[in-house]
């Protein structure tokens, strides 16, 4: 009797597997989700030297671009202003990845660093962060300044779990930017502008603004101002513990390989 039951179960499992297989096959053949069918892009010249604003990135993502798991990375093309299918990680179609806890750690695309998601791909990029306001970042740093591992710029040492100079300060206890009350705990404060931490206490300190610089996969450059990780909220006063996250809002300017300065001409 038991054996018979098992037989049926295997039979059922077999049907399930077949069903799943056919589903998968049909998906990949005709709806554009197959990475082989997503067209590559040619970088448009008009993308350079203008201020580009990206709002609430990470909300509605195309199929295949959505990370499968909480800590799986999100890939974004600064030159194409679009997310990239996760199957394309070993290509130069993406310039910046967000990975790690809540995908809040940024990295560039570099094929020669084993610690990079684009390892063995054609990417020649990297990332760095400066303690300088976005508007004041003019000179493009030397290529040797860029760091190539994935997920190396995120939390700032001013807050909890800091990882060097970061683009956001994690206020674990809510007492760095506020009074420590419940709704202000566990907030990630982007450090785009000059900020004051522990205001009014003996620990008070002013933090300089942070600006990230990415060398793109294809060798161009972008300066990036990370503004918010909360949906539709760009004013730090509005960030609360339960505000929807993570939705990246940021601004950037691209400069062509060979240029020495960031400038906005259009």
């Amino acid at each position, binding site marked *: 009797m038991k054996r018979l039951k098992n037989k049926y179960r295997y039979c059922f499992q077999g049907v399930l597997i077949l069903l799943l297989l056919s589903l998968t096959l049909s998906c990949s053949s005709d709806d554009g989700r197959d990475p082989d069918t997503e067209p590559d892009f040619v970088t448009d010249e008009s993308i350079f030297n203008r201020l580009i604003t990206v709002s609430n990135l990470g909300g509605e993502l195309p199929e295949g671009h959505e990370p499968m798991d909480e800590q799986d990375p999100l890939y974004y093309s600064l030159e194409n202003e679009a997310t990239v299918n996760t199957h394309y990680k070993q290509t130069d179609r993406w310039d910046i990845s967000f990975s790690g806890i809540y995908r809040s750690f940024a990295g560039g695309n570099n094929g020669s660093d084993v610690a990079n998601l684009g390892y063995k791909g054609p990417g020649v990029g990297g990332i760095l962060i400066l303690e300088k306001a976005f508007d004041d970042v003019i000179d493009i740093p030397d290529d040797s300044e860029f760091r190539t591992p994935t997920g190396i710029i995120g939390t700032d*040492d001013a807050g909890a779990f*800091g990882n*060097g100079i970061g683009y956001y300060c994690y206020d674990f206890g809510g007492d760095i930017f506020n009074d420590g009350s419940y709704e202000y705990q*566990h907030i990630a404060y982007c450090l785009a502008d000059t900020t004051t931490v522990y205001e009014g206490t003996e620990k008070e300190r002013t933090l300089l603004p942070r600006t990230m610089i990415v060398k793109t996969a294809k060798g161009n450059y972008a300066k990036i101002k990370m503004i918010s990780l909360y949906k539709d909220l760009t004013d730090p006063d509005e960030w609360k513990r339960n505000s929807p996250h993570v939705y990246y809002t940021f601004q950037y300017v691209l400069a062509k390989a060979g240029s020495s300065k960031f400038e906005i001409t259009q």
Partner: protein
Amino acid sequence: MRMIIMVNRWFMFLLLIPWMLQSCSGSDDTVDGGDLDDGFSTVVRDLPGDTNGSMGGDVDGKTKQGFDTFLFRLSDQKQVWLRNEADSARWMKTADWDLAFTGPYNSEVFVNNANYFYNPGYEGEAVNTSVVMIDQPYETVNEAPSDEEFDTSEITKIGWATSAYDDGWFFYSMDTHIAIPVRDRTWAIRLPDGKYAKLELISVYQGNPPEVTNMNWPAPYFTFRYYVQEDGSENLKTQ
């Protein structure tokens, strides 16, 4: 559905989820204390961190917000708490301590150093200290790195490893809700007195259990081991 729930828990992970440091099971390395003793190293078991600290409001029985920092001296295992301004003034800028356990759950460890702003020893006496990460099992680290390596190390503290390549002593997984110590990772240290040492951080859980499934398992209680070469040489052999 699960995805949505998890996203709403951003950054509550340390509290909602137990601090489970899952020891390597089935091997003979650092499980259950016994094997930690090598006849040379000092093994510290269940050193209590700030067990009254919390991030406030959420956890029963936690009496205050935030976690007090404590200092630790390798030579005599002296633990010093920085509970107030007077404690900080008395200790922080001295060379009388080697390690500071800071941050949430005291999990972020600094080597006393005068040169980095966020180091509790900032502007103090420990001007020449440094820490170097070595991705090798503790017992196989036989020699301290060169002074050049110490001088050029960019590690400012030993805390959370955001990826396998990041410096840090524990991972946190959103899938398993378990914080896992990075295995086969050793910290070579140049101490305030110039001596060389090696350190392995093993567990933040009371009893250093091989596996924890109870959400309320007591933490932080630190298990770690270290060896200081007293003759000033770079020899760190412990077997």
